[in-house]
């Protein structure tokens, strides 16, 4: 996997964690179990550093999608986009695209061939 895709997936995992902490229901549940969620600023700082390593155009594409979808980038599995479950055209699987970041023609999510 190309390094920029890897960074993007890491950013997405981090965004999901930050959303959980900001979500009152989830945060309250975790706190009631005894977890201390005191490091949100550290997480946000880590996100800032990670985002700075991603090319701006790619980051912008991700940010727009992440505003709509929990998962904005994902691997192609069983020839499908696992975001919308639409079968992808066979042209996606030619070697020319094996190292490219693809776009699902149905939902617009970013896809990569794992």
């Amino acid at each position, binding site marked *: 996997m190309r390094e920029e895709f*890897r960074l993007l997936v*890491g950013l997405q*995992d*981090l965004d999901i*964690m930050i959303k959980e902490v900001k*979500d009152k229901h989830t945060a309250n549940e975790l706190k009631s*179990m005894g977890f201390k969620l005191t490091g949100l600023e550290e997480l946000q700082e880590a996100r800032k550093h990670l985002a700075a390593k991603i090319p701006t155009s790619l980051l912008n594409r991700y940010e727009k999608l992440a505003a709509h979808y929990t998962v904005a980038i994902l*691997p192609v599995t069983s020839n499908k986009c696992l975001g919308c479950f639409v079968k992808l055209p066979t042209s996606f699987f030619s070697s020319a695209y094996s190292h490219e970041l693809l776009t699902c023609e149905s939902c617009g999510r970013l896809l990569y061939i794992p």
Partner: protein
Amino acid sequence: MESRKLASFFEEDLCIFGLRSKKKISVLQEMVRHLASVGRISDERFIMEMLKNRESLGSTGLGMGVAFPHGRSLAIKELTVLFARSTGGVEFEAQDGKQTNIFFLILAPSDKGADTYLALLSELISIIQKPKKLDSLLAAKDHASLISILGGEES
């Protein structure tokens, strides 16, 4: 969550009864490597980064010798729990400042909501709050005894 269902998460290849690592990051790495070796995760680096970020939010070492590292990642396909035990203990920055002996590593897929793992986490925490169960878990030496503790009638 019924106890039978809870016990079903703990498959034999998802248990480590002799953790070698003694430090926080290395014990996380050891557990993640184990999951990769049994084909449960697609990318160790994603999981490690996610777990390290989670620990920076606040240690998942709740004290009483137990920690619950957890989180969601694209690198995991289904809700997975790994049980690991260290006889010597691990310095895990636990809330009570004591060493951690048992770990429940809980990983959930990114595309599912937090509720997917919160129920499981809550159930496990309620178990360790029972002193008898906790003592048994701390002494569990094999998969059969673990299943007996998690699925048994003892309370």
